[in-house]
């Protein structure tokens, strides 16, 4: 049974061939993550693959992994279904599917990897393939975003590679991720890993590629990028870092700080954006900040299991909600939605802001509990503020979406699209009822106190919005142009590479000629000296003889 794990990453890969050569197969491509989902339910033993590299092992170590696998497979499945119809008219869809499948394969592989190398392989495959998704449209903006993405992804890869090496070395050659949990970590390793994974996860200040890349990709791709892929960074950190370590202890405040900064930075900058998908992307930056913060909790908490649960729930929650929003954003650019469509769209948005009865509410409450338990009660207020700001941000996103609709008559989306998108939209509401862990969290959040704690920031935010819209406060920052250091750097790098230094090994022709001529003249003079040959020879000999005599 264990060999079935092979199917998880291989199914997408094997599907590549029919995709390329058999047009009609594309219609079923979205089923590629299915084996992963099935296996998650079957839960066979893990598979050892010494033939790949020593210590290779695929399987599901714990429930977190299981949940993530199911959720990721589900997100990819639904986004895939969306994409089948969304991309149907695209002339370059074969390329899209190629990269889609590659990225999918990588994403699934990293989830089932139980050893560092497999994780890295999957991670790389996913990162690099996503490039194809980012630049898919081929527009200038997409190409720029893609370039930046790739540049940073490669750097991330290399940092990660170094971190991985160092980690393996620290573990004495052991590649098992489980074993690393108990192995102390060095500073260099930690920095490498933080930067490497951070670049993927996209928290501040490593986020610079994210707001450019996610909006550029096709909607389905944005959905998996923001929903599934950036989580790989957080997952990687949690897998690679040891559970408790003195060194980590020193770093945690910093990480937590970064997380929180990221959370608010995303909001502030996001609010200033004028494109819906960009706003959503900044929302991702903000949410990843929370995730990083949660991760620090996991690493400090007395009961890591609970914090771990929080992390898992948060990941799933954000993934689904953000996936739904991105798909929706894609949808509204193509057609006008009917009203119930907007109602659906509001669900994930509110969930993100932490509306009670949604997954968001559950997760936020759980988060506050954990923060309190961790003895950082002073941060509760900040988190509350965070909820309010999140609502502001998603509202801004929805508002922008509304305004970017085409001016046609509203139509209902086609069934598969509707199905996939709709499922994702209601997931934040539905999921708490279906998933025991989440259900428990949601029920906890339904107490009056907790509900109020969740609601009042939302109300505050709504009030604020009303004020802003009423008094057109936004006009003060409407023409504000934010610097884009990332893109700037990327462009500069490209230009630097394309301006070539003058070739040093080709001196000017005249200089060469004159040297040759001079040398030739010198040689002639020597030759002339040699013509009086015999005398020269005799002189040489005479000197030699004299030398001998003396």
């Amino acid at each position: 049974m264990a060999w079935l794990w092979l199917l998880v990453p291989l199914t997408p890969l094997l599907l590549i061939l029919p995709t390329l050569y058999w047009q009609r197969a594309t219609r079923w491509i979205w089923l590629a993550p299915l084996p992963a989902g099935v296996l998650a339910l079957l839960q066979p033993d893990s598979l050892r693959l010494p033939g790949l590299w020593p210590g290779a092992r695929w399987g599901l170590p714990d429930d977190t992994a299981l949940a993530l696998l199911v959720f990721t497979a589900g997100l990819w499945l639904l986004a895939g279904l969306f994409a089948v119809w969304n991309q149907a008219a695209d002339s370059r869809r074969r390329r899209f599917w190629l990269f889609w499948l590659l990225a999918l394969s990588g994403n699934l592989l990293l989830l089932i990897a139980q050893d560092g190398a497999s994780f890295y392989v999957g991670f790389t495959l996913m990162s690099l393939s996503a490039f194809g998704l980012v630049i898919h449209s081929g527009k200038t903006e997409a190409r720029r975003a893609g370039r930046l993405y790739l540049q940073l992804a490669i750097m991330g890869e290399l940092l990660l590679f170094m971190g991985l090496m160092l980690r393996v070395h620290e573990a004495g050659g052991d590649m098992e991720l489980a074993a690393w949990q108990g192995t102390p970590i060095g500073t260099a390793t930690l920095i490498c890993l933080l930067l490497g994974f951070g670049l993927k996860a996209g928290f501040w200040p490593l986020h610079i590629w994210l707001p450019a890349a996610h909006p550029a990709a096709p909607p389905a791709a944005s959905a998996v990028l923001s929903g599934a892929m950036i989580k790989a960074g957080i997952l990687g950190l949690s897998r690679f870092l040891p559970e408790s370590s003195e060194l980590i202890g020193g770093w945690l405040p910093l990480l937590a700080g970064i997380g929180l900064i990221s959370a608010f930075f995303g909001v502030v900058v996001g609010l200033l954006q004028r494109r819906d998908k960009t706003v959503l992307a900044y929302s991702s930056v903000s949410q990843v900040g929370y995730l990083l913060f949660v991760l620090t909790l996991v690493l400090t908490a007395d009961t890591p299991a609970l914090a771990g649960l929080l992390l898992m729930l948060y990941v799933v929650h954000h993934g689904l909600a953000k996936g739904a929003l991105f798909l929706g954003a894609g949808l509204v650019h193509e057609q006008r939605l009917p009203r119930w469509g907007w109602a659906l769209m509001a669900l994930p948005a509110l969930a993100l802001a932490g509306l009670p009865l949604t997954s968001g509410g559950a997760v936020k409450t759980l988060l506050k509990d954990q923060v309190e338990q961790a003895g950082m009660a002073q941060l509760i207020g900040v988190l509350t503020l965070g909820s309010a700001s999140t609502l502001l941000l998603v509202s801004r996103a929805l508002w922008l979406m509304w305004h970017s609709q085409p001016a046609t008559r509203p139509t209902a989306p086609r069934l598969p699209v509707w199905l996939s998108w709709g499922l994702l939209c209601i997931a934040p509401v539905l999921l708490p009822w279906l998933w025991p862990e989440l259900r428990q969290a949601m029920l906890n959040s339904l107490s009056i106190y907790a509900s109020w704690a969740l609601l009042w920031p939302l109300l505050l935010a709504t009030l604020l919005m009303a004020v802003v819209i009423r008094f057109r406060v936004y006009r003060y920052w409407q023409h504000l142009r934010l610097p884009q250091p990332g893109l700037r750097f990327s462009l500069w790098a490209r230009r630097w590479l394309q301006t070539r230094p003058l070739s040093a090994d080709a001196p000017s022709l005249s200089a060469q000629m004159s040297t040759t001529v001079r040398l030739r003249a010198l040689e002639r003079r020597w030759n002339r000296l040699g013509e009086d040959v015999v005398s020269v020879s005799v002189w040489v000999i005479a000197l030699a003889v004299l030398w001998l005599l003396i």
Partner: protein
Amino acid sequence: MIWTSLLPLLVVLSSLVPGLLIFTLREDQVRLRTTLNLVGAVVKILLVGLMLWGVANGLEFRFAVPFIPNGDLVLKGDALSLQFVTLSAVLWLTTTIYAIGYLEGAPLRSRFFGYFSLCVSATVGLALAGNLVTFVLFYELLTLATFPLVVHRGTAAALRAGRIYLAYTLGGGTLALLGAVLLHTQVGSPAFIPGGYLQATLGDDRVTLTLAFVLLIAGFGVKAALFPLHGWLPTAMVAPAPVSALLHAVAVVKAGAFGLVRVIYDVFGVNLMTELDLATPLLWLAAFTILYGSVRALFQTDLKRRLAFSTVSQVSYITLGIALLGPIAAVGGLVHLVHQGMMKVTLFYCAGNFAETLHIHKIRDLDGVGRRMPLTMAAFTVGALGMIGVPPVAGFISKWYLGLGALEVGADWVLLVLAGSGLLNALYFLPLLYRGWFGPAPTHWPHDEKLGTGRPGLGETHWMLLWPALTTAFLALLIGILAGTGLSPLNWAQLTVNMEFDL
């Protein structure tokens, strides 16, 4: 004389004899020539297979004839040499097929294939060389056999390249020869043995040992394209693509790298190297070359030149691996010998395909070529990603072992070198891939030779040009994915290293 002692000789002869026969053929005897070529290549693969089997089963293959006092001419098949021999045999087959397709209708093919076979014979001889004298001998012969290939086109540029090539390699050969004689005068030329033979015999003569080491490294470093000695390689790019492929992937640069391996492990030995602290400068040099080659590659506009500088960089991985003097790094170095071969040969095949099919030589002309020649471009992509070190292509495995090996011996900074090189590799390879796949394709290709059917897919170019590239790309992928299996190069490298380090 039993067969085990004849087999090494036969392996050499299996390309030498066809080569010499080919010289005598007329230009128009195409079929006979092709047959000779292919029969030779296949026979060699079979013989090498037999030898692999034998070595795995503990047989000893040794052929010796007297040559100079205390220095016999010895051909010997051990794990290390077989790794190189196998690479040569396999790549010879593919390159032969490729060359037949590449040169179809070109003049002077008999001469070309004759020297081609001689070149491979010299490489195999060098791989099987059982002592330093034999090694140096084949090393020089390799230079000679390669020169006509480099200047084969007979243009001014080719001649210039040929002259530069000779200036470097003959100079290096002479230095290596001096080193060999120096050691020979002290202790004769005993067989290469794991752990080296010098410590037992010449352990305390520091000056001689250092001088010999410097001479040998300088000598072999020329072909291995170590930093100040690499100048011939990029200019030698004017040769026809199969030659570049052979030069860069198998024959010449690997001969140099292999020489370094032999010198460090089987002549000096790790203990002696550590004792004399000889490896550190070499390590720095290799590290510098890795970065230097990559930086230079970055600024090339010509596809083949870029690949050439990439070779400069990549071959130094091997040097780096062996200079680290640790078992894991050694595995990385040795396995890169094969891995780099597979990947680089793929890249050159592909570059040749572009040049032959669409007359693409400059990088800026690559735009959209992936749509016209997707399979070639795919093979190219595999090779390029492998060079960067992207898993699961073979290059990743090498890098992995190199990195771990560096950490093992405490040379953590090497990790930065590897990462830096990976970054640079990405910087100069990814734009190619980008142009190929995503660049805007011209509406029609101005110089389309219409090889094959002329349509994307299996007929995108001549099948003899396409299939070798696909095969080697596939192999590069395969040996990366299946690195842990018994038949992989990695395993052979491990085997060798176990012997060398007495594990």
